[in-house]
């Protein structure tokens, strides 16, 4: 009976916290975006710089997320399936982007790959520009979203162990077949979640991208940079519309992954019957 005294305040506390921090601000952005009608919103959205920012953001995600997915699964397999000296170091290195501020990561990329950086001359001599262009933005986005796939997949790999894979080997399966038909289906849920987090991080990244991109409107400006720029230029309508576009992009990704996951859930509940 003592519990029921706590339950209501707890529930309202949690909901209130969520409302104050997430629901209210986000819905205000949506409200403001459409405050002057759909026409005004559309007008702001269809501006070349806004469309380019959206396109660039999606392009960066489309490249950085698959890269980090491959890398994340690879590192997880190495850490879970092999013993080698320095494994702990690799494990720790993967987490650096979580611990270090994105601005620092962006700065570090400039120091190494920028015009005056270590490889600056070498790259310039070959006509390759990384910083203040698309490759730099992709590198920064990939760097900050590095740990998510590893942190979701590695525990699953450790938990399922190696016996299923060994059994598949004795049944005649080669390494690739074992991975595709045994390992991958087993880690799929964790992988889906890791990819979701990676995508959300890449779409929303600001600090690192701000440092390496130069934020040139219509060229190297992602959506987050576009929003910030619009606020600076006293163009709130564009900022709101940009924010809504960013939210919708993230929502779309989340929906796709949830639906895939739900299908998996059905499979799991069937399995548990």
């Amino acid at each position: 009976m003592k519990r029921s005294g706590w339950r209501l305040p707890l529930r309202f506390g949690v909901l209130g916290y969520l409302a104050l921090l997430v629901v209210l601000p986000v819905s205000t952005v949506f409200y403001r975006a459409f405050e002057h009608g759909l026409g005004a919103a559309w007008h702001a959205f269809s501006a070349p710089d806004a469309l380019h920012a959206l396109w660039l953001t999606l392009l960066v995600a489309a490249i950085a997320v698959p890269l980090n997915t491959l890398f994340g699964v690879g590192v997880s397999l190495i850490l879970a399936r092999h013993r080698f000296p320095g494994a702990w170091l690799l494990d720790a290195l993967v987490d650096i982007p979580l611990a270090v501020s994105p601005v620092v990561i962006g700065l570090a990329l400039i120091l190494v790959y920028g015009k005056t950086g270590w490889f600056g001359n070498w790259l310039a001599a070959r006509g390759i520009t990384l910083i203040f262009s698309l490759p730099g933005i992709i590198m920064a986005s990939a760097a900050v979203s590095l740990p998510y796939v590893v942190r979701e997949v590695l525990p699953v790999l450790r938990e399922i162990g190696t016996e299923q894979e060994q059994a598949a080997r004795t049944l005649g399966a080669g390494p690739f077949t074992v991975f595709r038909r045994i390992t991958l289906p087993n880690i799929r849920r964790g992988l889906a979640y890791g990819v979701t987090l990676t995508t959300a991080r890449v779409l929303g990244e600001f600090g690192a991208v701000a440092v390496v991109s130069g934020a040139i409107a219509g060229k190297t400006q992602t959506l987050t940079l576009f929003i910030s720029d619009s606020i600076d230029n006293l163009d709130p309508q564009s900022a709101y519309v940009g924010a809504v576009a960013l939210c919708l992009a993230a929502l779309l990704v989340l929906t796709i992954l949830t639906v895939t996951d739900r299908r998996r859930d059905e499979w799991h509940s069937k399995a548990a019957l």
Partner: protein
Amino acid sequence: MSIHVQSISKRFGDAVAVDDVSLEVESGSLTALLGPSGGGKSTLLRIIAGLDAPDTGTVRIEGEDLTATPARHRGVGFCFQHYAPFRHLTVRRNVAFGLEVRRRPKAEINARVDELLELVGLAHLGGRYPSQLSGGQRQRMALARALAIEPKVLLLDEPFGALDAQVRTQLRQWLRDLHDTLQVTTVLVTHDQEEAMEVADRLAVINHGRLEQVGTPADMYDHPANEFVLTFLGPATRLRGEWVRPHDLVVHRVEDGKPSAGAAEGTVTRVTRLGFEVRVDVALAAGGDCWVQLSRGSAAELGVAAGQRVWVARAETAAPASPAVPILSA
């Protein structure tokens, strides 16, 4: 088909798992690798399967040296202690896996899977997932999966270890029958001597990574090569410094006189009834203890009770003491 391992050794760091083991497994036999947990039997089995590589020695199956051949090309059926079911696949797809990997035609796979599910009694459960099966059913699914590839030899790691006692007894008999039907050379690993003696037609006792003795269960029970094999394969006690099975001893009332030259005098310290048998502990007058296993009938006939003075002697029907077993002073 026969298996021939020659001078196999395997270390994990400082620990010696298998120490210079040579063993021949006859074609069509059912051999049990028997020994205490952590004795290296599972490692030896995994080496035969190609799941672990030996540090030294060779593995031959049907005369062919497979030491360097990867597991997937050995054509060996392996069942893991916890069955390692593919959790995301149905029972049918589990069994079909080895055939699908070999890209056999669909019709052939279906026919073969039907046949195997029938053989292991899971024909009605083909559409289920492993999580929906009982332990015994999972075990049989794992067997069907291993048999699907028509393995040259079948290797079973603690096949009954994860099952409860009743299912275990049923499956033992079932496995024995299955082996008699299929005649596929089978090696199983177990730490349970009773299980090994019931199921296998040959035993290989392994302890601390070393092969202690190989032979038929009856032969090894009666003529163990050393003290370890003797004590591991069944109950043993010592009378006048000689190892003997407690059911090979008899008790006489002291007032009936010394029954034989080898008899020893003592006092009954405890009488314990264990179902149909009675365990009689005796403190010997010459020092040391021994225990005698009597049937309920003969215990009642003698009226043994704690405190009673008795003669303990070898029964006339007892197997002669094995000359191979060192005689130790009590």
